[in-house]
């Protein structure tokens, strides 16, 4: 009988894992929608209707905002380097750095690479698939942690010589 419970437990785990990945992609799409004032275009894209390119593509948006973006990128970089000078716990450091890097990436993609001014269907065709594929690679980490647990100095005393305990 307990095997049924194990199976259910693992099924839930699998579901959570799948959900995290798909949820990540979905939230990215949602972000695109909110940031890009483009709900209309997304709906049109999903329905396959003739969507008008977002106005930006045909407005002569000035260079000014690119200078601002450049400044922001330099600023965030300095912020990151500053973090290296104050000694934070590694995990906090990692999360902060990755957060800032994602922000910088979004700025580069959105403004320098012009994604903000492309049609939303273009962004939707390209970004979610990439994000999902990259997030999928997270699945390798449990094994990285396991090999760390197998390192000699990390094996608890009582298991060190008895091999497999069960």
């Amino acid at each position: 009988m307990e095997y049924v419970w194990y199976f259910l437990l693992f099924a839930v785990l699998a579901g959570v894992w799948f959900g995290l990945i798909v949820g990540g992609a979905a939230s990215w799409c949602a972000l695109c929608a909110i940031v890009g004032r483009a709900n209309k275009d997304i709906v049109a894209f999903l329905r396959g209707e003739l969507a008008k390119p977002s106005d930006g593509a045909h407005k002569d948006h000035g260079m000014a905002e690119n200078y601002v973006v450049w400044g922001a990128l330099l600023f965030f970089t300095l912020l990151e380097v500053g973090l290296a000078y104050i000694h934070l716990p590694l995990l906090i450091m990692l999360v902060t750095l990755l957060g800032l890097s994602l922000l910088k990436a979004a700025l580069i993609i959105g403004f320098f690479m012009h994604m903000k001014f492309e049609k939303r269907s273009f962004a939707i065709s390209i970004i979610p698939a990439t994000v999902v594929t990259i997030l999928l690679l997270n699945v390798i980490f449990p094994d990285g942690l396991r090999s760390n647990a197998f390192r000699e100095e990390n094996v608890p005393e009582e298991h060190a010589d008895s091999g497999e305990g069960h």
Partner: protein
Amino acid sequence: MSEAAATADTAAAHAPAASHGHAPAPGGNLWDGGVRPLGAHSKKFGMWLFIVSDSITFAALLFAYSYVRLSNVWPTPFHGHSIVTSTAMTFVLLSSSLTMVLAVDAANKKLRDKAVLWTMLTALGGLIFVVLHTMEWLGIINDHLMPLIKAGEETKSGWTMPMVWGTFFAATGMHMLHVTVGVGYLVVLALQYKNGKFKAIDIEVAGLYWHFVDLVWMFVFPLIYLMSAKI
């Protein structure tokens, strides 16, 4: 220009380069064929797809780095000097992205000479990055690898590269390869563009590649350098 006229113009602009360039029927479906549904030039779409694939390659490299880092005790070999150099490199790369934006802008405005100038400046930025990076590489090889190689020769046991330097060279080497290719790409493009061979869209596509190289560095720099810094 009225709304309807604008739509018609847009549709014509996004017709494929093949022999047929019709707009979809009024109220028709963008995905019905005969038009580019994504509203972008095919070359641009193609470059974006390349970027998708390449970003996954870089992601896999950085994930591999994280994997081995998770399963090992990790040293912190980057001190003040390295961090200052790499920060300067980052600034150069970011600024070259800005000049690339200016080049694309100039090309779109049909200011050919200006576009060539900005493109060349971008390539120059890339070149500075490569030079600074190579100097740093040589420093690391001298300070950290040569002693190991010598020790290996003396004890006749051969040598292997410590994990921290293996990941460093893998990630930054792949990135540097991209920068170097990018510099060549930009120089060739600028020279040909000057002779009237390419169009504004080609500058824009090259720009996408260049910004992507910049984008990758935004992850390589914090993960490889800052996470292993000790100042």
